[in-house]
Every structure is written in structure tokens, then in C-alpha cells.
């Protein structure tokens, strides 16, 4: 398969994730859609690594996975803290830092 096919799949996954981030209001769903966007970027990185025949892109993809894991940890901790304080689990209501 040509590399272009993988890039198209990665672009579609990224855009599905972006649409989900825009339309969903539950922070849990938004985190899931964020994962989709990161995975789309990961697929593009691995595809480009295959295109150049180097392994740097794969290392970059691994680092992206680590960063995603850290983001998930902190995000889920925030959601649990929000739930504990009986605040509404809705990103439109949580606007106290709005300024």
C-alpha cells in the first residue's frame, strides 16, 4: 500500500476526533476524542517514518503516547475531582476560570 493511504486514514481519524471535541460536552468524551486526535497524529508519524526509512518517527510516536498517557492521568483525576465536589460534569458549566 502506498504511504498516501495511511496519511488519508490518519487525516480522517484526526478530523473525526476534532469534530467530537467540538460537539461533545461531557469532559470524559472530550478526552476520548482527544485520544483520537493524538492517534491520528501518531499514525501520520509512523507512516512518515516508513516513508523515509528511519526510526526517528517511531520514537516520536512513542513519546507522543507517553504524553497522551500523562494527559489522560491528569484529565481523569480532574474529572474525578469535579465529580467529588458535586459540580456539573459539563464543560459549558465549568467556566469559573473564564475571567
Amino acid at each position, binding site marked *: 500500500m502506498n504511504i498516501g493511504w495511511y496519511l488519508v486514514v490518519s487525516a480522517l481519524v484526526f478530523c473525526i476526533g476534532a469534530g467530537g471535541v467540538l460537539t461533545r460536552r461531557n469532559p470524559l468524551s472530550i478526552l476520548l476524542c482527544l485520544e483520537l486526535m493524538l492517534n491520528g497524529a501518531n499514525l501520520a508519524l509512523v507512516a512518515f517514518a516508513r516513508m523515509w526509512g528511519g526510526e526517528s518517527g517511531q520514537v516520536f510516536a512513542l513519546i507522543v503516547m507517553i504524553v497522551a498517557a500523562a494527559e489522560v492521568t491528569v484529565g481523569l483525576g480532574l474529572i474525578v475531582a469535579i465529580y*467529588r465536589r458535586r459540580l456539573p460534569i459539563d464543560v459549558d458549566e465549568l467556566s469559573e476560570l473564564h475571567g
Partner: protein
Amino acid sequence: MTQFIFFVAAIGALGGALGVVLLRNPFYSVLSLAFHLVCLAALFLLLHAEFVAAAQVVVYAGAVMVLYVFVVSYIGGAEQVPSGAVLKVLGPLFALAVAVELCIAMLGSALKGIKTKGAPIHSGFGQPAHIGTQLLTKYLFAFEAASILLLVAAIGAVVLARRRRGLEGGDEEPVRIRLREPDYAGTMAEGAGVRSTRYDELLRPDDESGTQQEPKPEATHTGGW
């Protein structure tokens, strides 16, 4: 054969991604994301990224998804609030526009490599030995920074999700129920004429009204024993 696997995995990945966005129940969204990740790992395998594929399945589809499932079952699948009318129309339109733009930008670019199957690779490309060598030599700084980031994230999650006293809604207060003790509980000390003194201290305000009908014990020293 490669094409068949590619199309199956790509359709699975795209279907899983659509399921994450479209399913209303967060639990099903998480399961859909796990399916999407496994399909993506198959795509990584087709791209000769064995170690990344293994890490994807183990770390992502294993550990991170378990974390998600735990949080979803803890929160209890909060009911989905429908998004606003403007975003409901503009969000998918924006996503579609970005998709078209990305496809045009990538496929219409002058990169010659995307029309090929990729550069010739050495044997063992993408296997753990090579990735590990790269991580510990060329990308050592990124490796160490990632480990520090993971440590900070773990500590931050513990601090964020820990139970704090005083900041909760007050429902964590221990509830003390003051029961009126029966006059005679039938203990041996009462049989010997000594009333239990522990609850007399608590019930003193009631004693003015309550002592008329209750018989006075003979031994009136209630100073404890």
C-alpha cells in the same frame, strides 16, 4: 494480502473513531476506542513498526482503557447533555473542512514518497532493539524528559483526585446519633444498684422531666466506679 489487511484495519479504525464520537453512552465510547486502537496497531504492523504496535496494544488498549473504564464506572455514565445548536451544526462542518484540507495538503504536496511503498529499510526496522538503541543514544533527553513527565503526572493525579477534608460538600461528616439509653439494661452493675454513669452525663437535660416516673435506685452515688 497486504491490501486486504489494510482496508479491514482502516475501516475498523475509522468505524471505531466514529463510534467514539457518535455513541451516547461513555462506556460504549471507551470500548469503541479500544477497538479503534487495536485496528490502529494492525496498521502500525503493516508499516513495520512492531514495537510501536506492541506498545499501543499494551499501554493504550490495555492500561489507559482500564483507567477510562474505571472512571466511567465510578462516575456512572453521566447522562449526555445535548450540545448547543450552533456547535452541533458547525462542529461537523469544521471537521469536514479540515479533513478535505488535510487530504488536499498531503496528497497534493510535492512529496514523492507518498506515492511509493516507502524507502528501502534495513532488516529489523522498528524492532525493540533498534528503537531502544535510538531511545538511549540519540533521543536520551526526550526519554528522560518523558520519564519525569510521567512522574509529575502520577503525583498530580494523586493530588487532584485525593479526598480533601473541608472542601467536600460536608456529607463526609461522621453522623453521631444520640440514642436515649434505656433505664435499665439489665447489667450486673444495675443489679447491684449502681447506674451506669456514662450516658447520665449526656442525658442530663432530659432528667428533670424524666425522673418523675422512674424509680430511684438505692445507691445514689453516680460518681462512677
